[in-house]
């Protein structure tokens, strides 16, 4: 196991804590909270694409499965929100396992298309099974959130909760990045042929990663549902999967800060664009295109290059 980047983790911790003290306005806090949700999702997407080479264009579906499953189960059986979220996470991992079994045998654009198809089907089900999900009008019957008896309501308490979850996730991600598993995955991404001759069971590994990231994304979705107080299928459609793809690529594929930086930039972007909202989509696409063409390492790669330059001066 390689050395964990403690300075980076400490930096994240400092930013999280100082944000809580510097930002008092609930509106801006809510933007940071959404940014953290996006960062976790984008990082999971990054693990799939940047580390393992899997383009999961249906990733938003797992976010939605987590959100809907958690609130529906809590509303129907009256169970504790946190338990519902954990169950949702397990359910999503199971779905990913079942879907992944045939899907992960495919490659490249066939894989992309299969995951996209899966995502679309889930989206249609969210819209059509209105008797469970509330249909296009969304699901409103979301109870107040509590964590082992501690009631969490409103931006201030949710910020603390989400920030803790986010930090824990970042630590785990950092540990994963420096572990043998990440080596294995990147090896698979580089050359499946070579990695197979090393004795790596590619299929099993991919299935494992796919299921775990689906579970994490769903867990995230459950918390999102309780924070938002309202969910509707439109938040979990193909567009969101594309947003995650953009965040991961612009942030930097295959790196830990990648998903975080990408999510930070692209979540904050609409706020600065409020007056030129119409151009937001074009800018989004341009960011993605420019990154692919000129900055293959994303913003993280750019920052690393700048830091290295400074170090060698």
């Amino acid at each position, binding site marked *: 196991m390689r050395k964990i980047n403690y300075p980076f983790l400490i930096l994240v911790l400092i930013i999280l804590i100082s944000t809580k003290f510097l930002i008092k*306005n609930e*509106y*801006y806090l809510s933007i940071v909270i959404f940014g953290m949700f996006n960062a976790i999702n984008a990082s999971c997407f990054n693990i799939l694409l940047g580390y393992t080479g899997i383009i999961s264009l249906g990733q938003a579906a797992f976010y939605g499965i987590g959100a809907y499953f958690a609130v529906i189960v809590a509303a129907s059986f009256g169970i504790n929100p946190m338990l519902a979220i954990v169950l949702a996470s397990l359910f999503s991992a199971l779905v990913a396992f079942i879907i992944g079994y045939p899907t992960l045998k495919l490659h490249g654009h066939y894989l992309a298309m299969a995951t996209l198809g899966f995502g679309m089907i889930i989206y249609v089900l969210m819209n059509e099974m209105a008797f469970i999900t509330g249909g*296009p009008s*969304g699901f409103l019957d979301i109870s107040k959130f509590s964590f082992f008896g501690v009631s969490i309501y409103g931006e201030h308490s949710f910020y603390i909760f989400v920030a803790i979850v986010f930090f824990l996730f970042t630590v785990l991600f950092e540990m994963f990045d420096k572990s043998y598993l990440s080596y294995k995955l990147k090896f698979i991404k580089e050359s499946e042929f070579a990695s197979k001759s090393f004795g790596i069971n590619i299929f099993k590994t991919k299935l494992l990663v796919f299921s775990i990231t689906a579970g994490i994304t769903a867990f995230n979705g459950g918390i999102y549902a309780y924070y938002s*107080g*309202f969910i*509707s299928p439109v938040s979990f459609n193909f567009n969101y999967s594309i947003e995650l793809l953009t965040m991961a690529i612009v942030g930097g594929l295959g790196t830990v800060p990648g998903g975080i930086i990408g999510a930070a930039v692209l979540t904050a972007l609409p706020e600065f664009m409020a007056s030129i909202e119409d151009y937001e989509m074009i800018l989004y696409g341009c960011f993605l295109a420019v990154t692919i063409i000129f900055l293959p390492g994303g913003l993280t790669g750019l920052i690393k290059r700048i830091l290295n330059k400074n170090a060698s001066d």
Partner: protein
Amino acid sequence: MKKLLGVVFMIILAVPLYAEVRLGALFAVTGPASFLGLPEKQTLEMLVEEVNKTGGIAGEKVKLFLYDTKGLDTEARKKFIRLVKKDKVDAVIGPTRSGSTLAIKELAEKYKTPLFSCAASKRIVQPLNKYVFKSPQSDTHAVGKIYNFLYKKGKSKVAIITAQNGFGDSGRTELLELADEYGMEIVADEKFRDTDKDMTSQLTKISETNPDAIICWGVGPAPALVAKNTRQLGLDSMLIMSHGVASKKFIELAGNAAEGIILPAGRLLVAEQLEKDNKFREVLINYKNAYEKRYDSSVSTFGGHAYDAFMMFKYGIEKGGKKPAAMISAVENMGAFIGTAGKFNITASDHNGLDESAFVMLKIHNGDWELIN
């Protein structure tokens, strides 16, 4: 001394903040409901301008913060929170769509901000939420009007085709619930989505049941496609639309297929056809002339909803002030007033104040609206 100067400075800075009325607005200016949202936006901007020219409301100018919900419920929520937390508005007018309103209903209470919705679903005011009012007629009234019309014509076999969104859903519930009361038999119950491009499958299924009338409940371009497909399939049942298509844009999109379509709507569209002594005529003609002169486009009942909502808001500020509780109780005691949608009678238990008489039945003929009895 420094502290005193600081306080004085803050007061001077704060004065502009307090000397104005901050009004938020959420409309579906773009997206599938845009031919509702755009007239609403234009009407509200026109009214705010007019009111500011004569010194504002209760001596204070009105500052308008208007956002586009793009017809999306999640966007409406985001922008509502922005209006309340960042722009610190005193009240919000809108949103355009029933779905969006239902999605933010509880936020109005959470953030203690009065909401004057321009959406139709009766679920917006039932169950009653202290902070939420609505200006359009309810779908209950629209359905009642339609069924009454059919009953008088001796028709009873009805096929319904509704949109899969808040408005269509609400309409469908009413159509099913009120059917027995008027002796209507629902022989088909089909649905379509806002983004569907072809409804021939649903309409074919409907035609097999041989209904006397087909009632279509939706907004945006989709009902226009329903009209076109109905014509294409040569169905000879009467085609009835909801008040969601009471706009010239619908006639434009449906083209020839719009001919003969019947719908309930507010009197605004046929203001000129009303008798000279009709009590609604003056308000309607004034609004119609002002709007059409300013924007060079036909008036629509949706703009009228924004007009009525603004009237409620204005009254609330004048008689009650900016504090939510006072504003709300002022509006609740507004008594009878004549708006574009009809005669309102808002009370503490009825935050809409309209009944069936707010509607008239219209027929589309030669690309224009015709009052029928």
